[in-house]
């Protein structure tokens, strides 16, 4: 009786090895493809416009992000903490500039910027156009000396933003010789295309 029992026990336990193998493969895949977004960069929420045929992916590193929100504020940010410390004097600071003097900047109320209603990052406001232009140049120079590579510039505009702010930004970029940049868009889904 006891011999039968003993023989049955190993047969009842399920061999988990292949299961664990597969899960390990999936795990490895996700670890390797994972990209950790800097939480800080998402502090200002924008609704991205859709576009259909842009195949270029957003660069991952060494990026200067210029965010335009629906109030027409421009936020300049780089992903390198040393560059931020260098140029802004604050490792998590966020430069802001409101080009249109006829309207009020939106960053005065943190609820305008994100859902949570509070900013993790201190905003360093620029009133003067020339100073903001100098900032963009400083970002680039500092990045070149800190990282050794040229900054790639992406413009993240809110769907609802006025083109005026975008035009002002493009004007500034032209004057600071930042003539190569890209607009960040969301891939258009087929559903939206039908409309």
């Amino acid at each position, binding site marked *: 009786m006891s011999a039968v029992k*003993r023989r049955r*026990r*190993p047969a009842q*336990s399920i061999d*988990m*090895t292949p*299961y*664990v193998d597969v*899960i*390990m493969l*999936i*795990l490895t895949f*996700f*670890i390797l*493809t*994972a*990209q*950790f*977004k800097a939480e800080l960069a998402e502090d200002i929420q924008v609704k*991205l*416009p*859709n*576009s*259909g*045929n*842009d*195949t*270029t*992916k*957003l*660069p991952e590193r060494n990026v200067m992000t210029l965010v*335009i929100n629906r109030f027409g504020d421009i936020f300049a940010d780089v992903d390198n903490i040393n560059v931020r410390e260098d140029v802004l004097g604050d490792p998590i600071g966020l430069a802001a500039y409101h080009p249109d003097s006829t309207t009020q900047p939106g960053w005065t109320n943190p609820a305008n910027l994100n859902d949570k209603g509070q900013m993790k990052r201190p905003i360093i406001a620029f009133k003067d156009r020339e100073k903001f232009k100098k900032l963009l140049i400083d970002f680039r120079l500092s990045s070149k000396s800190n990282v050794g590579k040229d900054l790639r510039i*992406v413009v993240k*505009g*809110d*769907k*609802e*933003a*006025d*083109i*005026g*702010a*975008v*035009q002002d930004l*493009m004007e500034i*970029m*032209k*004057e600071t*010789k930042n*003539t*190569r*940049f*890209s*607009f*960040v*868009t*969301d*891939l*258009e889904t087929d559903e939206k295309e039908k409309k």
Partner: protein
Amino acid sequence: MASVEQAEGGSEKRGRKQNKWSQRKRVGFHIDMTPYVDVIMLLLTFFIMTSTLNQPQVMQINLPKGDQETTVKVDMGNVVFIRISEKGNIGLSKGKSDGTEEQPIKVNLEQMKQYLEGWGTANKDMIMILKFHRKAKYDMMISVLDEINRAAIEKRYSFSKMEEPDFKVLEAIGG
């Protein structure tokens, strides 16, 4: 272990004991994988949750490098004006060689692409001048650029400021 058993003597006894021992060994070597699998599943869930598979796309733009003062002279006959009004209407008009331009046509995005493809294949030197109203929405600008990128033509366009005459042109198509 074996030597210890040998010292105990008794060949019959030893044989039975060895058999029993090896059986027990098999059971003892069975590693319980459950906690290991639990941890791996947790890790897997974490990475699945945090991974961002849909990386946003980018639209490449190259502005002309030249200084503000440098102007490029172009034949007005090659120019196509694309004007976007505050309401998001698109006014499309072709320039004439004598410096004037044809009556603007009010189009939607799909028609704009078709017109541009038609003119672009007829005239390889076509240059598009984009004029956006300051109060128009950024979404519109991306849609127009996207449509131009999609059209099977040479992508030569420039951004230009909207001025008084442009407003009048837009009024002709209903603002």
